């Protein structure tokens, strides 16, 4: 992906935050065990080892221009095997959070997916799968996207596993926790 895709004004704040991630992985010895263990490395533009190198060198345009961290599926193989004992999966999550917080365009799909999941949880305390996917489709503004899910959605409805009833009650039982957590995250 082209680094210039993220080199806009909103992205520069994400760049400052990269230091926090650098501290998490600063004793990386570039052995590549993470890359050799990663089930998704085949689809990445930078291998995990390369990504950590760019983080260590403080190159946010390269890091946030890459889709590598959005391809982490949290299998924890790299964390388990890292000879330095580094929290590599946690560091991937930290990069995902920076991508989400600063709404970096290359990571729009996974960011919207996670954000709308949390919106449904915030409204009801538990996720409502129908509402969450509808919010996700609306966020992505791609009229063809729902078609990809139509067949599976119909099978789930036919099986009685997916309710088509839109949740009406909004108790917002987690509102206090959400407010406090967001406050704390922003004040970090």
């Amino acid at each position, binding site marked *: 992906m082209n680094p210039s895709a993220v080199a806009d004004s909103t992205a520069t704040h994400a760049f400052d935050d990269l230091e926090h991630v650098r501290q998490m992985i600063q004793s990386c010895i570039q052995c590549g065990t993470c890359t050799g263990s990663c089930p998704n490395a085949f689809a990445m533009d930078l291998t995990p080892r390369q990504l950590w190198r760019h983080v260590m060198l403080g190159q946010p345009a390269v890091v946030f221009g890459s889709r590598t961290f959005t391809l982490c599926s949290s299998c924890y193989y790299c964390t388990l095997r890292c000879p330095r004992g580094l929290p590599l999966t946690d560091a991937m999550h930290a990069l995902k959070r920076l991508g989400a917080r600063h709404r970096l365009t290359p990571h729009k799909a996974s960011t919207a997916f996670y954000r709308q999941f*949390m919106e449904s949880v915030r409204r009801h305390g538990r996720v409502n799968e129908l509402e969450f996917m509808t919010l996700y489709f609306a966020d992505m503004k791609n009229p063809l996207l729902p078609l990809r899910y139509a067949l599976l959605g119909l099978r789930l409805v036919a099986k009685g596993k997916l309710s088509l009833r839109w949740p009406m009650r909004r108790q917002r039982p*987690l509102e206090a926790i959400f407010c406090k*957590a967001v406050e704390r995250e922003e004040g970090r």
Partner: protein
Amino acid sequence: MKVHYYPGCSLEGTAVEYDRSTRVVMAALGVELLEIEGWTCCGASAAEATDEWLALALPARNLALAERHPETRDVLVPCSACYLNLKHVEEKTRTDAQLRSTINTLLEGEDLRFEGRVRVRHLLDVLASDLGPAAIHPKVVRPLDGLRIAPYYGCQCLRPYAVFDDPEMPTSMEPLIRAVGAEVFPWPMGGRCCGASHMNTQPEVGITLVAGLLKAARGADVIVTVCPMCQMNLEAFQNSVSRSQHMDLHISVLYLPQLIGHAMGLPASDLGLGYNLALTEEWRHRVHAPAS
């Protein structure tokens, strides 16, 4: 034996059969489930990708609710993603009192406190370590003779915390499979990743990982899972994966408590077998399970 029970959101929706089969099998094995009153979402994989503090506060809230009832320390969790989120809080606060007190400031609004007194347990851990073949075998009335079962563990019940099994070469399901009279299908994929939510946001990557698993399972009769995400990925995309790989990769996929419950003679409806998306004719024929 009494345990707190945290079902998690999936078990109310797309994994309703995992909830049903867990409840009836645990009851039949003499385990009483105390469902956590007022439980809420653990944050799934979305909280950790959006907000660091929510990713800790949401699981902690549920653990704090469980601690209000001190009858037992154990919190039983069937979903591997929920399990790991709750386990993270247990593990990270064990040695970090400062972190626990920060988390507690986030819970103040609800007058909740997490003290770190509970122990988070995966369903597979309780089935394999606490109950085991000794508890299950005597209750088997429909032995699954000759059925070849591929045990699929997925990632998050194994890693990063090696609590009850080898995180790279897991074996904890094997004695349970033998206890119901079936054979263990030897394959090296038990702890490999199913792609998790890639199937939604990066479908071409998800399909590749699922294809690798389904191809490796050729020769087995059933894949057994212990996670709603793994189950969905393995059962729901068999048509498109078969087409993309130019081979028939259809195979029955069951949750572990469905398999055990069936062997114990529990009715198919109690085990939610009508909800599974991938039960082959062969499974129906071999085990005489009624069609949904």
